[in-house]
């Protein structure tokens, strides 16, 4: 299958030539296929955020290259600028980027920069707002007077409104309450189902990763330590723990049960599959 993003031997060093020199990512080669939902996990400082910023040309690698749709994004200035619209990047705490007087104008900032027509812009703003659950009654409000969760949705809508082929979100649920987290995760899966775009999700939450991602990439000390399906990655529990990462709660419970002699099948990492496995053992009767 043709890849939508491909990186080759990507290396990035911060503050080269000073006492603060630090290699953030080293020799990272990876292929992302169209329509995938990839969760990128890793400890703080493992290089995952640095890696993400290369994919839409915000950071320039010290060596290696990035191809989007087969084109080298650093080949020319125009290519680097165009890729911003193809690969939409939602930063951590994106609500701090809101600046316009109204929610509507803020969401349409990206489409305006794309020099789209008025009607096209309007359509995209409304679509993005709908996908993120931002009600039209908020359009004329100032983004600064919204609640934290609402601000986050508006900021995400601002990137979705560019209709990028690939949407990258850097810890989109950080600092939200459980309901807010669930809401944002649902927005992301809805968006993907409706538009068929590729989604990369940087997250700390193994449970989120287990629930929605079809593929996991684990960063450790600037390189890719694991890359595979949730089954493959979560079966290597010990290695994950050694890297300072968690496994999903359900996987940990299943593991503890197995250690006590309960015959559970392998590859349990969501609460649903755990529930079903336990019910199977109990004779398939749900207690209530």
């Amino acid at each position, binding site marked *: 299958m043709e890849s939508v993003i491909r990186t080759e031997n990507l290396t990035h060093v911060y503050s080269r030539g000073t006492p603060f020199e630090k290699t953030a990512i080293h020799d990272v080669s990876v292929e992302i296929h169209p329509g995938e939902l990839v969760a990128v996990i890793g400890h703080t400082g493992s290089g995952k955020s640095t890696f993400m910023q290369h994919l839409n040309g915000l950071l320039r690698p010290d060596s290696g290259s990035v191809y989007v749709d087969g084109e080298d994004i650093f080949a020319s200035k125009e290519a680097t600028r165009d890729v911003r619209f193809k690969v939409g990047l939602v*930063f951590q705490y994106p609500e701090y980027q809101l600046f316009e007087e109204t929610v509507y104008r803020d969401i349409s900032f990206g489409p305006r920069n794309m020099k789209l027509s008025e009607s096209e812009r309007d359509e995209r703003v409304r679509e993005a707002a709908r996908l993120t659950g931002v009600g039209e009654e908020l359009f004329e409000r100032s983004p600064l007077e919204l609640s934290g969760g609402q601000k986050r949705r508006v900021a995400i809508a601002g990137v979705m409104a560019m209709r990028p082929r690939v949407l990258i979100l850097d810890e989109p649920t950080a600092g939200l309450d459980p309901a807010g987290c669930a809401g944002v995760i649902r927005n992301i899966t809805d968006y993907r189902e409706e538009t068929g775009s590729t989604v990369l999700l940087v997250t700390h939450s193994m449970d989120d990763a287990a629930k929605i991602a079809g593929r996991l990439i684990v960063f450790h000390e600037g390189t890719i330590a694991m890359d595979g399906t949730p089954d493959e990655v979560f079966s290597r529990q010990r290695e994950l723990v050694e890297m300072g990462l968690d496994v999903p709660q359900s996987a940990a419970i299943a593991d503890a049960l197995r250690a006590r002699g309960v015959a559970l099948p392998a590859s349990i990492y969501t609460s649903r599959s755990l529930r079903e496995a336990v019910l199977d053992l109990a004779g398939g009767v749900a207690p209530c």
Partner: protein
Amino acid sequence: MLKDITIGQYFPGNTIIHRLDPRTKLILVVVYIAALFTAREWLSYGVMLLVTCAIVAVSRISVRTLTRGMKPLVFIICFTGVLNLFYTTGGTTLFDWWIFHVTTEGVKRAVMMVVRILMLISGTFLLTYTTSPMALTDGLELLLNPLKKIHVPIHEMSMVMSMALRFIPTLIEETDKIMSAQRARGADFETGKLLERAKALLPLLVPLFVSAFRRADELAIAMESRCYHGGEGRTRMKQLRMAGRDWLALFSGAALLALIIVMNVYGL
């Protein structure tokens, strides 16, 4: 990019220069500047250059770091050099065309001025490179302490200064982040006419101000909840103490200034 700004940055280390008391370093920088402006002829310049190089070598600050910090000042340095080259009279004329007269005295003055500015910058950079901002403001507060007698709010001033210094890296980082976020939405900060560029800054400045005010507010609350009430009766966790090396450094500084003054008197 923005991270490469090195003016006023501190490079941690453990050399004797790093360990000197900040008060000593502040006084020495003043003495150094005084000596620099007293130096008049080649020989005294040579002495100053030797001293500067020695300090750089001891502090283990790489020459590349120093020169990188000077980059934004290249224009001023060149400008001063050129002005002195053409506007100094005396000595024999080397070159004469239209309104341009270059004399031996002019060349000498130009070279000296450039060297003087370079040393001036190196000296002050060495201070901030080897002293943490906190130590620097503490030292300054203690040095200016006598002014409290005439009701100058020294403690408040130094608190404001240390907070400002403390927030420079934070704000730079924040600027970097917001710029990246807006770039990701297709904002363009580099091209366009002056007016367009000024307008393009709006998506950067609004969030930056909002966050600066929010941070200031949070900091004020955090300080108050820890019972901060100004400098009255406040003690320090880290007491600054002058050690033997500090007195030795101060004595060397005084000796250097004396030497340069004597050389100046004898026209060396």
